[in-house]
């Protein structure tokens, strides 16, 4: 332990600003009659996404008793959708989420996430609301919108939905030293997005990227894009090249949801990743009926970073991972 490790990494002034932003977020939703909810951060089920690793905890009924694995939640999404299916109406949650191994200038394994759901909204209507919140906090006037496809065409001159894999690889290798031998289109698209497009977005202020490839739908529904090619009703907000929010016009089809969970589980198996219990209660909730809704998750620490014009997450949280 270093002598100064007891100190917060963020200044007290930054923490004061952070508190003002948290209060402004709660005011924003109170004014719009969106209900604040709290759901467990400790669950019997884990996220299925192969690229998100849950932190495991163990529960014992008494010290030394038989232990039961539990998982710190990587997002409140599953539980909040169960509330929506139970008739909650519009809800938001401002709370902690946990992701194993995610530590860096913009990541802390434990972070503050704002997630909200709006019945009867689609992705475009929810982008309007994200815009209203973020512009209010950051003092912006408006946020540009561009489709994933148009962005790749504009920045890299290739069509991400149609270009052959060989073209994606050639484009990446032309400007990056990357050893990757991967036959998955999405790996290459993610590489191009994170290494070439995000840095290019750094000079463009705030940008919504929407209509992701169908293969990157996650929990968004699919719909035909401009030329009929299916796209995901998903958007991401980037500000100064930093990913700030990810939203969907939500999938409500229980069978499709069950299928995506199973597909994630088999891709986990093929990647040699741990098999963890799937959230079958989410499938049951969708069978009961999730209202037509849109939902979004927003990284609050990053929002504070942008408001305070700092590039390090440790400037906006009192005790980051290495001092926790």
């Amino acid at each position: 332990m270093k002598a100064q490790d007891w100190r917060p990494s963020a200044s007290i002034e930054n923490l004061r600003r952070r508190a003002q932003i948290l209060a402004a977020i709660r005011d924003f939703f109170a004014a719009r009659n969106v209900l604040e909810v709290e759901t467990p951060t400790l669950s019997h089920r884990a996220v299925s996404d192969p690229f998100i690793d849950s932190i495991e905890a163990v529960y014992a009924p008494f010290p030394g008793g038989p232990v039961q694995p539990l998982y710190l939640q990587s997002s409140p999404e599953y539980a909040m959708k169960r509330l929506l299916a139970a008739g909650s109406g519009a809800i938001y949650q401002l709370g902690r989420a946990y992701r194993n191994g995610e530590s860096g200038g913009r990541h802390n394994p434990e972070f503050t996430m704002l997630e909200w759901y709006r019945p009867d909204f689609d992705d475009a209507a929810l982008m309007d609301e994200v815009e209203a919140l973020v512009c209010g906090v950051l003092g912006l006037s408006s946020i540009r919108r561009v489709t994933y496809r148009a962005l790749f065409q504009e920045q890299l001159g290739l069509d991400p939905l149609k270009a052959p894999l060989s073209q994606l690889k050639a484009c990446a290798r032309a400007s990056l030293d990357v050893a990757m031998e991967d036959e998955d289109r999405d790996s290459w698209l993610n590489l191009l997005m994170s290494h070439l497009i995000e840095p290019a977005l750094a000079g463009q202020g705030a940008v919504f990227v929407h209509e992701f490839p169908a293969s990157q739908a996650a929990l968004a529904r699919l719909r035909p894009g401009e030329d009929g090619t299916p796209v995901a009703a998903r958007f991401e907000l980037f500000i100064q090249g930093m990913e700030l929010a990810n939203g969907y016009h939500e999938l409500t089809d229980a069978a499709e949801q069950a299928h995506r969970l199973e597909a994630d589980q088999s891709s986990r198996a093929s990647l040699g990743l741990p098999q963890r219990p799937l959230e079958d209660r989410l499938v049951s909730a969708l069978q009961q009926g999730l209202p037509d809704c849109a939902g979004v998750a927003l990284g609050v620490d990053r929002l504070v970073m942008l408001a305070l014009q700092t590039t390090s997450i440790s400037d906006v949280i009192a005790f980051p991972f290495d001092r926790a």
Partner: protein
Amino acid sequence: MANYSANQFKNGLKIMLDGDPCTMTDVEFVKPGKGQAFTRVKMRNLISGRTWEKTFKSNESAEGADVMDRDMEYLYCDGEWWHFMEPATFEQFAADKSAVGDAHQWLKEQDRSMITLWNGNPIAVTPPNFVELTVTETDPGVKGDTAQGGSKPATLSTGAVVRVPLFIEEGDVLKIDTRTGGYVSRA
């Protein structure tokens, strides 16, 4: 040597790439909210000095390089090799011109330098940040002109030539910043 997976990468880790030992000078974790994570690393080739950025997928790994930094005392140069000694063990190491590089102009006998060894052989020599060297040749000093600007070249005992203030005289001992090659003060 051990293998390191990309999620164990950190600043200062030395790995083998294309047969050369390389060090990581900056490690950045690139993780989109959805999809594949990457580790983007600023690398420096310890043999050629080349620096560049390389991206690893989080499940890729790299072989560690047997590279270590040791403090050693500079002994002498025989014209071809620069000889150093580890003070605790008296073990001697000889570094060639490519390992010594620009450091040769700051090496004074008995000063400590950091020697980077790869598989037991010196591949780089890093002199201390500050050295004290004697002026062997310079134009006569200008008395009373201690505050005014203006400078002149001075040759030091190691052969290095640095810009010094006008009042410096032959025989003065100067403190030099080896990172910039600049004069700091009289010692």
